């Protein structure tokens, strides 16, 4: 493998990993702070993609679609928490699993009814089309760089939010010790709603910006969900830093795995997870980091 190809695969790995991080960070925070296991998280990703498709068809403007999508997704997350997830907080894991499993089915069918079951493409916006040259004879799509850039910007923003603001402090505290935060009199329901809406919005947004690259198809939520779970297991529940590290790790394993041993690529990530579980059954990083 020559240097250029290697570089390209690295860029792909980072882009894939960062995208996965967007989705998984929401999942790990929702679990770490609210103690809710949400199987439907992958569905948000799928919703994002289909949302991008429908909005793009209506407005014809990708940037506008993204903006509208963000607003809609925060609203959606807020309502979903208020109307459904708030009932899940004190339940046993088994019941949470089932309820969110049912939610997946509901989302899939609603999408089927409201949009359709077909595969769609979302056009790359014209101002991001094209590729830049890398090395002597290879090029790399600008849009993918844009994706990585946006995800990275969001990751940095999350870092600042969580580490340097009061809200972030509450989030971290909640992730480390839920009961304590409640007893400190912090408006826990508002915090929960905020975190949940944020997590949902991140996943939906990830689906939106990924749509020009990965296209839009019915099963797309499933694989993202499972991988997000692997990210959370490897990175440690409630740890955003862990989610980032794990997501990038998985990005590299998957990307290079496909290059070197295509057939086993799908299973390789799980081998990685197995190895890490043997070493650290609770993930790489602690809650709240």
């Amino acid at each position: 493998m020559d240097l250029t190809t290697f570089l390209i695969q690295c860029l792909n790995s980072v882009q894939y990993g960062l995208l996965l991080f967007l989705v998984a960070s929401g999942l790990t925070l929702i679990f770490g702070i609210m103690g809710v296991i949400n199987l439907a998280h992958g569905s948000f990703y799928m919703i994002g993609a289909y949302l991008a498709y429908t909005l793009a068809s209506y407005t014809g403007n990708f940037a506008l679609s993204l903006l509208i999508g963000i607003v809609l997704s925060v609203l959606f997350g807020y309502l979903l928490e208020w109307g459904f997830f708030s009932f899940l907080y004190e339940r046993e894991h088994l019941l949470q699993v089932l309820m969110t499993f049912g939610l997946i089915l509901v989302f899939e069918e609603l999408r089927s009814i409201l949009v359709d079951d077909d595969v769609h493409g979302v056009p790359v916006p014209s101002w991001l089309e094209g590729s830049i040259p890398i090395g002597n004879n290879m090029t790399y799509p600008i849009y993918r760089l844009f994706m990585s850039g946006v995800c990275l910007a969001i990751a940095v923003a999350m870092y600042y939010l969580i580490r340097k603001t009061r809200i972030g402090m509450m989030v971290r505290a909640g992730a480390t010790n839920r009961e304590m935060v409640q007893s400190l009199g912090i408006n826990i329901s508002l915090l929960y709603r905020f975190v949940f809406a944020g997590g949902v919005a991140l996943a939906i947004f990830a689906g939106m910006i990924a749509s020009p690259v990965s296209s839009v198809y019915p099963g797309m939520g499933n694989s993202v969900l499972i991988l997000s779970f692997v990210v959370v297991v490897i990175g440690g529940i409630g740890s955003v830093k862990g989610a980032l590290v794990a997501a990038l790790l998985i990005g590299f394993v998957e990307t290079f795995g496909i290059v070197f041993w295509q057939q086993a690529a799908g299973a390789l990530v799980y081998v990685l997870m197995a190895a890490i579980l043997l070493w650290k059954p609770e993930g790489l990083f602690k809650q709240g980091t």
Partner: protein
Amino acid sequence: MKRYAFWIWLVAFALAATLPLLPPPIGTEFYIALGTRILIMAIFALSLQLLVGYTGLVSLGHAAFFACAAYTVAMLTPEYEAGNGWWLVLASIGTSGLLALVIGILVMRTRGIYFIMATLAFAQMVYFVFHDFAFFGGSDGTYIYFRPEFSLFGWQLVDLEDLNQFYWFTLLALLITVAVLAQLLRSRLGHAIVGIKYNEQRMRATGYDTMAYKLASFVIGGMFAGLAGFLFALQYGFVNPEFASWHQSGNGLLMIILGGLGSLPGAVLGAVVFELMRVWYQDLTEHWQLLLGGTIIAVAAFMPKGLMGGFSGLRLPHRRFARVKATAPAQTTATTVMQPQEHA
């Protein structure tokens, strides 16, 4: 109710055995096939019940063992003739048990939510192995053209190609499953397993190697899931990666919640109700998954104790042999406290 449990089972099995003999429209191919499928799903639900309802291990990857056995029988069945039934059923159950052992060792150190996610992820791995390796037939899967032969000293014991006989064969498998699990739960192993569900810390403090017991439960559950997979593959004549999908695992969980956790009849009841519901919904609309999803949510939200929860609560299906010296009347219904253990 407990005293009559044995007789109720007996009657239920006897009634079930008459299904193929009933006059149409019930005794027709469609219903016999549906009945067979329900019996197989009951075995699957029972195997999961051991894990979830009795050991407290919430596994979201149980379908992996179901699929493993199915693929085993598919790959080992000869292409042009019926295979040896004894060998095939042993091999199927054996490979799923082995897979359960390997996965079990890897996940047993995790607790609570990690356990759930890890089991899900490993089942996905199994799914991918079946899906991506051409050896297994890829996403299309493999076919089984001849159901195996079970013969003893040259005498054919049962003709599985016959619809009715296959139904009775499956019914026998269910009977064996119920009998073995019931006895297991009555034995020391069973008591220890349930003790772990109620309070793992106390079990360890008392001197039980809880890790080993949980692993045993996981493997036994995996083997019975394999039995279900073996039969399912034979019934439909094909296997594909979807057998390992988490939808299958999730459906299993729904069945035991529906019927009632920690109850053997509950698992069977849950499987029956689930399958009937599925057939009914599929008949109603092409968007039947919406109804199914809604039902799952409703059941989890409003009926977490399941159908059996109304009858007997969550008692162990074992007789108390308390030789009480005082004349205190024997307790019948316990105020059961289902302690959600973090080791789930």
